[in-house]
């Protein structure tokens, strides 16, 4: 079992980095990174119905929208965590966007990216991210 932090019913996996805007990013052995949305994010969006992908091979700057997650009555913009190139879209989600809800941290990853800079300042740890969720829940 992967180590997790639980905030209410929301699971935060400890094996990866997060962003304040609810994305996760996980470095692979080959230096590329997988990206997806957190369990909390997919539950807040509810009923994810479509993923709007950008073209593979395009370059993105840190903070640019790199993919959009579309739910029935809401959308979530997913931001590039650092300057990067989009190298893969998880096309399985085209027909089965439900996978994001079923497995946000594994099968339901959204994209694979390759870094173009060393700046990782937009990434936060699982512990820091858990605090972000707590703060948001407090406001509700």
């Amino acid at each position, binding site marked *: 079992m992967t180590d997790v932090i639980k905030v209410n019913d929301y699971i935060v996996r400890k094996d990866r980095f997060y962003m304040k805007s609810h994305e996760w990013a996980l470095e692979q052995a080959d230096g590329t990174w997988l990206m997806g949305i957190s369990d909390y994010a997919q539950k807040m969006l509810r*009923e994810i*119905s*479509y993923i709007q992908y950008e073209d593979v091979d395009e370059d993105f700057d840190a903070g640019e929208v790199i993919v959009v997650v*579309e739910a*029935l009555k809401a959308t979530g913009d997913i931001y590039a965590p650092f300057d990067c190139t989009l190298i893969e879209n998880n096309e399985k989600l085209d027909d089965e*966007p439900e996978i994001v809800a079923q497995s946000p941290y594994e099968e339901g990853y959204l994209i694979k990216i390759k870094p173009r800079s060393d700046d990782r300042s937009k990434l936060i740890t699982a512990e820091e991210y858990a605090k972000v969720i707590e703060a948001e829940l407090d406001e*509700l």
Partner: protein
Amino acid sequence: MKNKRIQAKWNEKLIMDKGAPGRRAHIPMQLDIPSVEVPDKYKRISPAKLPEVSELELVRHVVRLSQMNHGVDVGEYPLGSCTMKYNPKVNERIARFEQFTELHPDTPDQFMQGSIQVIYELQEAIKKITGFTGVTVQPVAGAQGEYVGMLIAQAYHNERKDNKRTTVLVPDSAHGTNPASAAMAGYKVIELPSTSEGFVDLEVLEAALDDTVAAFMITNPNTLGLFEPNILKISELVHKAGALMYLDGANFNGIIGMVTATSMGFDIMHLNLHKTFSSPHGGGGPGSGPVGVVDKLVKYLPSPMAVYDKEKDHYSFDFDLPHSIGRLHGYYGNFAVNLRSLAYIYRNGGEGLKKVCEAAVLNANYLMEKVREIKGFTVPKSEKVPRKHEFIASPYRMMQETGISANDIAKAMLDYGVHSPTIYFPLIVHEAMMFEPTEGETRTNLDHMVLALKEISDLAYEDPDAVHRMPLLTGSSRLDEFSLAKNPVLSKKSKK
């Protein structure tokens, strides 16, 4: 059951799935003149598969479908911020006058004096109602009016070489069209948090105002139905920073005849004639979104403007407007909508418009006091302050105690023949339900709405699952919206 109302359910097939080959409804007139052949290279390959129905088949189809549709003519329609008021029938009659309906907009001036007069008189009437010195009635919807307003703001600042002004401020309670319109006009949008009482936060505003702000767009009364008590101070701050004050007139029914836009300090505003001025919403449109501006902005208004030469008693269009932002519509806007609203204004007169406002505000506050007493509901923010034409009730408590949400209540109301209020808006109230009864509803109707909400509340606390299953007496029950969003079927063709 005795308070519920049943809507027709006809299981009506698509018109394309009705009929049979060779059946005809409208048969166009043919003339005794030579026939022309379309050259082969331009010929349509396969004919359009349009319906083949008889005229009676078509009549029943549309009449049955209309019976599966809720309108103001059918029942209560307290949809907040939409002002679903009665659409007077005399306006429909006037809008059917052939001299208006059969007139091509490029007809030479001297033969369309009547139509230009209507446009001109509406410009003049709106000037008086709002206090502005220039009014265009060309924008065909509120959102287009907003866009015109933003283009005018751009033109104004650009001409003054005040090029640093790249942002537009909106409160977090703003209608979605406000940020969308500002963004379309090239502005960056900054949302300002409201105070806990739902008003513009003066400190936040002051901190946000600098020489990069082009305009502050607000709705007053705001989307909570509250009149901004600090409106004069707000205008002063915005003007001091060199920015323009924009009024979203969607909620004008709450103040019409009581106060003008200019006296509150606004520089630009749009109105929605399909809201305050009684033209029908038509199932989504057509609307009309006139824009009024103060003196210094008049020269930027869209082209053309209707003008009147009193000496010659002649109406015409002025196209010679070198500073104008240009044209947003192929002709002169939604003429037939504008015509209805002019008739409405004249029918009421200044005295009537004031009465309209009073009665609308009274209805809203009466309904609010009754809803407040229903178990599970609260009226959040500025609890003791009277509302204008609309108010927000929140069943947040009911949601926590029974699991019944604003959406569930909205759906259950449909079984009482009452359209739901606007729900989940504004975003700053949990489980927001925005009620706007309008002046048209009788006290009996208001009491019926209260009764419906009471019964729904009782049921929620007794048997919440029963509420989840509602509506049951409507043209359809709850629909599978998710499968549709996943695999959009947007025409009969894509259905196969």
